């Protein structure tokens, strides 16, 4: 009997990706988790077990900030789910309409903000909404609605929602593109068969297309979840590390940054920062697991 050959080529071809991924993703991740179990006492790094987590959740000064950031993060996510994804689906449905003219133009125009840097988006929207130089007040004035204008980014009650909507504006192109691709992959025969049975127009969308794109919507939801709970850039670019006004826009990312790297007179504390990063990792892991085992496995798939 012939001895099975060791298939070296598999290892060789996998090696570059595995090595790079390990070096830049897996190692830092576990090292961060390891770091969260230490603390610095008298210039020495000391192993303290779960004490950092105990401080984070037990000490009112820390836990208050943590729960505030987590709550804000959920609100940020909720706005994306309620605004970004439905709009993305609606745009994709309109774009995939065969009689729409200039579809390619709209598609690109809506997708372009996605490729812009957060810094540019944050800066541009700050200027647009600026009560002093911004065009938002004068545009509202032109239609006689000046009284509706408020310095949204500076008010505790509006700032987070405003930033979430800016982020929606930036990223609405991603669900649109994914859904658009899913819609295009639905075979004409299925729709024609539906037409013969009298299902046309809107009901064709609700009864045939929507069930067929549900897996894509699931993927988008999980991407939104992970993206939102890792978010940091836009808030930092628009509001700074203190996530003003009065921490009303503080999310886990900015809270982690402020703790890890320090801010102004506050010296950085990499160990507490790692503890927060560990908590973020756990939250995202739980969210993804709920999706994978709770939702995705139960989702019905249709063979097309």
């Amino acid at each position, binding site marked *: 009997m012939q001895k099975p050959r060791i298939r070296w080529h598999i290892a060789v071809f996998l090696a570059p990706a595995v090595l790079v991924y390990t070096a830049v993703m897996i190692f830092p991740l576990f090292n961060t988790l390891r770091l969260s179990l230490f603390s610095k006492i008298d*210039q020495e790094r000391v192993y303290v077990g779960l004490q950092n987590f105990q401080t984070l959740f037990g000490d009112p*000064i*820390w836990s208050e900030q943590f729960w505030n950031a987590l709550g804000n993060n959920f609100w940020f996510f909720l706005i994306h789910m309620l605004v970004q994804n439905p709009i993305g689906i609606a745009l994709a449905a309109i774009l995939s309409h065969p009689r729409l003219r200039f579809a390619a133009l709209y598609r690109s125009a809506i997708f372009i903000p996605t490729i812009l840097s957060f810094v540019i988006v944050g800066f541009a929207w*700050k200027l647009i*909404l*600026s*009560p*002093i*130089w911004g065009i938002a*007040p004068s545009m509202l004035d032109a239609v006689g609605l000046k009284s509706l*204008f*408020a*310095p*949204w*980014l*500076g*008010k*505790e009650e509006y700032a987070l929602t405003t930033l979430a909507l800016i982020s929606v504006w930036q990223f609405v192109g991603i669900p649109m593109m994914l859904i658009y691709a899913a819609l295009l992959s639905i075979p004409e025969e299925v729709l024609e068969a539906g037409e013969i049975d009298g299902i046309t127009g809107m009901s064709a969308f609700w009864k045939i297309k929507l069930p067929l794109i549900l897996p894509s919507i699931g993927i988008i939801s999980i991407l939104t979840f992970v993206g939102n709970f890792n978010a940091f850039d836009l808030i930092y670019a628009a*509001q*700074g590390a*203190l996530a*003003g*006004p*009065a*921490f009303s826009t503080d999310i886990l990312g900015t809270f982690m940054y402020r703790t890890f790297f320090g*801010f*102004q*007179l*506050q*010296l950085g*504390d990499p160990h507490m920062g790692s503890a927060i990063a560990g908590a973020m990792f756990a939250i995202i892991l739980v969210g993804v697991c709920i999706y994978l085992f709770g939702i995705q496995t139960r989702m019905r798939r249709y063979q097309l």
Partner: protein
Amino acid sequence: MKRSLFSLALAGTALVATSAYAEDVTLTIESWRNDDLTLWQDKIIPAFEAEHPGIKVKFSPSAPAEYNAVLNSKLDAGSAGDLITCRPFDASLALFEAGHLADLDDMEAMGNFSDVAKSAWQTDDGSASFCVPMASVIHGFIYNKDAFAELGIEVPTTEAEFFAALDTIKEDGSYIPMAMGTNDQWEAATMGYNNIGPNYWKGEEGRLALIKGEQKLTDPQWVAPYATLAKWGGYLGDGYEAQTYPDSQNLFTLGRAAVYPAGSWEISGFNALVDFEMGAFKPPVQNAGDTCYISDHTDIGIGMNAKTANPDAAKTFLSWVASPEFASIFGNALPGFFPLSSTPVELEDPLAKEIVGWRGECESTIRSTYQILSRGTPNLENDTWGASVAAIKGTSSPEELGQKLQDGLASWYAPQQ
């Protein structure tokens, strides 16, 4: 990477050369002031080298935001320069405690500085000083002289006059009374609370009592400035809640606002932008004739790398930095960064001269939150930003703010418990 290798190689040959001749010593200065590179290269270094043949100086700044991190890694790796520009308070104290900065107490030239000037670069008990103070910034108000003349307003000296002046400007309507926003938060604390506050807590007296635990942030002298700030809200421009620091600077330099709560570092920037005449007045006192207190905040110093190969040359340079000659060059090249040496320096810029003149009339102090009190969590300085914003917006009462800050401070600072 290649370039840094190349310059390393160059530095290597330079080292060989210096040891061979044992004459020319090269000192490298680490700094975050990359804005000042030309000033160092064209004025300060030539002046020093002319007097001290045999010592060459190289100014090598990094970006301000990266400075602390870059410096720390260079110090740990042993590749940091001989001289180190010092941030005030805890950042430099941490370097000293880690053994990176040398003790400078035996340097005669340290006698040229007052205790307040040295306080930013001393151990908590004042037993060791580790950086030579270079410059401070002074807080006050810069105003548009043309606007004041047009509206017939006198420069206010008391708080009543201050708010009367703001009322006049507001009624007239052609100028925004005061240019400040709360979006970036720090202006409210730095140019608001710590600008007007020293008049209430009597400068050093209150600041040191707070550190010793003899006064509390709930005491009237610490709460009252919040009550005054609460009145500011009505005089700031429309939508000040979302107004950023550059917005405020632009509003003032474009001549749209009459008063700008300022730090003296604005002077050189403003000089280049305004087409009206600027004046300055110090934080108004409560009653005419009260002693005035100003925030004369120590901002930048320079120390010696404890592991430098040329300690003597480095000390020669530091002594020169402590001399009146350096003070005069530095103070005039950077109006608004005021030299800290006890010998008075003749400044040419009229606005800078006006502001530095307050030192003779008022008692100097530094920002109340900077020494020791911002060492723990929650961070008092950062909390003061939030509290000052809340005071201006009126979202919390001054008493609530004082209580909240006191609770935060007491949670980790033993003398306040």
